[in-house]
Every structure is written in structure tokens, then in C-alpha cells.
């Protein structure tokens, strides 16, 4: 099997690179990134310049490539999406549709929901905050307690969500809530989509470790802000329900699994390899060229080989999804390997560069605008976010290897 790109695909890659070179400046990158990294001294929402950039990308047909044309997409294949997304992600521009909401809507949404949300997400007129995690329900997400109670044609939502990282700039929330308190914990859960300006929603900022100083663009989990979001008697129409009532666990899990496939996730970890390769190729310290050190060359080669495994796993997942095959544990396997590789390569960089690799961008001695130091703080997060590596291993064991579940019934028997 040949994983090389065709001449046409290479041409597309060059076209995207040319576009980025002509249109993306460091100032624009900062503005585009401000959407996700708002701090008290930085603006909220997308700036007019960043919006104009996304309009240009949209006009080129590079947003929503894999989504059907009737919903505003391009009807293209995943490899094309991968090539375009890889180049933009590497340049620090996020062109994904913002997480697991879009694939979940395509799989479980009504025609009305698809026609409303998918074009809006592609044009970036709609942005979702992911409302899954709660203070006591993170890795064990099914323990969630935020409730949605039926009241005529409406649901009334009460509860709270943690780490709703996009809540301060999102237009809508993609929320998982309990609709049957008496059902087993993985059942009785439903998913809702509704606007953030619905009365009763409150957002409380949580400043992250990357807040002061703010991390440079391209840092692994460099966002300076996340949020907790509260719901006090939030009243939403029943048409906000995504999929069937009480069947939301399956929809949410499937959306998360599909969101793990693609260039953005792959590059979260592998970009660190690219950083160090580029650094040792182009730097020397008073005559010492790190690229000529046998120990450094050996370590970088070892990490690069691991990085290629990340790429192959991503390609395999894309191939399965593209063919409409059964996609069960593959995304979970990737979600173990790639984040743990990201941590290993970050640690390897600190060994290669010593204390310089831990300096943040405010230090005059920081290397590459402090990205190595900020990555030390952010890389570990990728093993926790969007399904911890422990939970992912459990999914590989159950779905991939068909081992018995470690969950136990109320009588203590394994399920």
C-alpha cells in the first residue's frame, strides 16, 4: 500500500501553502487566535480581519470539505480535507468545524437541524461550546447530573458544566444532560443544541496555567481561558433535542470518536517533532550545532519514527470512515498513542535543550518565542481532554479486543 500523495494532491498542498504565505501574517494569526484565548486585555470574538481571512478560505472551498453540498460543504474526500487542514493547522489557523457537534448532527440530526447548523458551522457563523464535563463527571462522563426535565413542549435544564472552553465566544452549546434519573447511568442521557443567549445561562471564567504570559500561537493546549457554565431553569424547545431522547450517550460518543480523526488531532502531538527538527536544523550555540550531536540525532530520529505511527494510524482511521466501514476502537487507539507521543517528545526536547526548553515567552532567553516552555505545561493536557488515555485504553480493550467490560452491575457482576 502506497501512502504517498498523488501529483494532484501535492499541487493542492502547494496551493494551500501559497495562500497561507500570501494571506497569513503574524498579526493576523494573533487576531485569529484571540477568539480562543481571550484574556482581560484581549478582544472577544473574531476580529474583522480574522473574519475576512476565513471568508477567503471559505470562498476557496476549503471549509467543510467532507460535508455534503446540500449542507454547504464541498462533497469532497477526507484525504483532501486532511491535506488542507494539515497546512492550516501547522500555520496556526483552525479550519475544523469546532469539535464533535457537526459529525453528531450529521449522524443523528433532523433535516431541519442539518440545514441550520452545518452551513452555519462551515461559514463559522455558528460556534459550539462543548457542554459535557461536570465537576464530578469528567473521565467518568456518564456520571453527569445536569438535568433536563420535560415541561409540555419544552425541557427545563438545571446544572453545570466544567471546561466549556468555547463558552465565552460560542454562539450555541452542544449539551449532554440527564433526562431519566432512574435509568442506568449510560442510558437516560440526551443531547441538546441551543443558543448561548438563552435566559438562565451563566459563564464563569477559569484562567489556565497559560494565562500569564499567554502562550504563543501553536502551543499544545495554549488557551489562556476555559470556563464553567451554569444553567438555572434554562427553558428550551423540544426541537433542540439531537437524536432520540435518552439515547444521547451513543450519539455523543460517536461524535467524539469521529472528531478524533484528522489532521488537527494528529498535529497536536506531531507538531512538537516538527518544532525540534526545525530548531536543530537552523540553530547553533556558540559553534555547537545540536543537529550534529549523535545523542540528539538519535533521540529525534526515535521520536520521528513514533510520529510516523501517529500519521499511519490517522490515515487508517480516515480510510475506514471514508469507506463507511465500522469505526469502533481505532479513534481510541489513536487518542492513546498520539497524546502520549506528544508528552514523550516534549520531555525529550527538555532533555535536548536543557533549561532553555522550559523558559516561557517573557524570558529574554526563551527559544522560539517560548513555545517549548509553554508546551511543557500544555502537552500533558492532551492525554486528559476529550477522553482520557485510561478511558481510551478501556475502549480499545472492550471494542477492539472484545475483553469483558470492567463495569459492574448493581449485583457486582461484570457487565
Amino acid at each position, binding site marked *: 500500500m502506497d501512502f504517498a500523495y498523488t501529483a494532484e494532491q501535492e499541487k493542492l498542498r502547494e496551493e494551500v501553502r501559497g495562500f497561507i504565505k500570501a494571506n497569513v501574517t503574524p498579526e493576523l494569526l494573533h487576531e485569529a487566535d484571540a477568539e480562543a484565548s481571550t484574556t482581560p486585555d484581549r478582544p472577544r470574538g473574531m476580529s474583522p480581519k480574522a473574519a475576512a481571512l476565513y471568508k477567503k478560505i471559505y470562498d476557496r472551498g476549503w471549509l467543510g470539505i467532507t460535508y455534503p453540498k446540500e449542507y454547504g460543504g464541498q462533497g469532497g474526500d477526507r484525504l483532501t480535507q486532511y491535506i488542507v487542514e494539515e497546512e492550516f493547522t501547522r500555520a496556526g489557523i483552525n479550519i475544523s468545524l469546532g469539535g464533535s457537534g457537526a459529525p453528531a448532527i450529521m449522524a443523528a440530526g433532523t433535516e431541519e437541524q442539518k440545514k441550520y447548523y452545518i452551513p452555519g458551522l462551515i461559514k463559522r457563523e455558528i460556534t459550539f461550546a462543548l457542554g459535557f464535563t461536570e465537576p464530578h463527571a469528567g473521565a467518568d462522563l456518564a456520571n453527569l447530573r445536569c438535568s433536563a426535565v420535560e415541561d409540555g413542549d419544552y425541557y427545563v435544564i438545571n446544572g453545570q458544566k466544567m471546561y466549556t472552553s468555547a463558552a465565552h465566544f460560542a454562539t450555541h452549546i452542544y449539551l449532554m444532560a440527564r433526562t431519566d434519573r432512574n435509568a442506568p447511568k449510560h442510558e437516560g442521557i440526551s443531547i441538546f443544541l441551543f443558543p*448561548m443567549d438563552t435566559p438562565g445561562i451563566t*459563564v464563569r471564567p477559569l484562567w489556565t496555567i497559560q494565562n500569564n504570559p499567554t502562550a504563543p500561537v501553536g502551543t499544545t493546549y495554549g488557551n489562556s481561558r476555559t470556563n464553567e457554565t451554569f444553567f438555572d431553569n434554562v427553558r428550551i424547545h423540544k426541537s433542540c433535542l439531537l437524536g432520540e431522547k435518552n439515547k444521547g450517550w451513543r450519539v455523543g460518543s460517536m461524535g467524539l470518536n469521529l472528531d478524533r480523526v484528522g489532521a488537527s488531532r494528529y498535529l497536536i502531538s506531531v507538531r512538537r517533532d516538527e518544532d525540534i527538527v526545525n530548531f536543530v536544523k537552523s540553530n547553533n550555540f556558540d559553534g555547537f550545532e545540536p543537529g550534529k550531536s549523535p545523542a540528539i540525532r538519535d533521540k529525534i530520529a526515535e521520536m520521528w519514527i513514533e510520529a510516523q505511527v501517529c500519521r499511519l494510524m490517522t490515515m487508517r482511521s480516515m480510510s475506514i470512515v471514508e469507506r463507511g466501514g465500522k469505526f469502533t476502537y481505532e479513534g481510541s487507539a489513536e487518542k492513546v498513542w498520539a497524546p502520549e507521543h506528544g508528552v514523550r517528545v516534549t520531555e525529550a526536547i527538555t532533555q535536548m535543550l536543557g533549561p532553555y526548553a522550559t523558559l516561557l515567552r517573557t524570558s529574554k532567553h526563551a527559544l522560539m518565542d517560548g513555545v517549548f516552555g509553554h508546551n511543557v505545561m500544555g502537552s500533558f493536557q492532551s492525554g486528559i481532554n476529550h477522553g482520557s488515555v485510561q478511558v481510551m485504553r478501556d475502549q480499545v480493550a472492550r471494542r477492539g479486543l472484545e475483553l469483558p467490560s470492567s463495569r459492574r452491575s448493581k449485583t457486582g457482576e461484570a457487565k
Partner: protein
Amino acid sequence: MAKCPVCKGDVNEDAAKAQTGMTSGGAKEVDPTMGTRQFHDGTWYYFDTLECRNKFTRNPDGYLQGSA
């Protein structure tokens, strides 16, 4: 005024919920220094800090029954 179930300090519920800004999506935003809260068994409990809230999350019944 509410009592933090963990440190027993006073928490002003109104201040914790008072709007100090608005997100770009139109949601109410509050001052994070005024405390936080947790929805537990149908009731909102108020905490002066996230640290207290985290302790409560690990052992809510212990704090509510005074055995923590």
C-alpha cells in the same frame, strides 16, 4: 449569605451570580473572584473558592453531614 460547606466561610450568593459582563454569544458572565457553586442532588451549594469546591466534589456527603 450562604456558608461554604467546606471552610464554613461566608459566600454572597447574589454576588456570585451577579452579571459583570456578557459573552459574545450573549450569555451572562460573572466575576470569578466572587465564589462558585455546585448543583448537588437538586440544590445549589456555594463555595468561596474552587479549591473548596474541589474538596466538596470528592466527598459531598461527608461535608453535608459534617463528617469530612
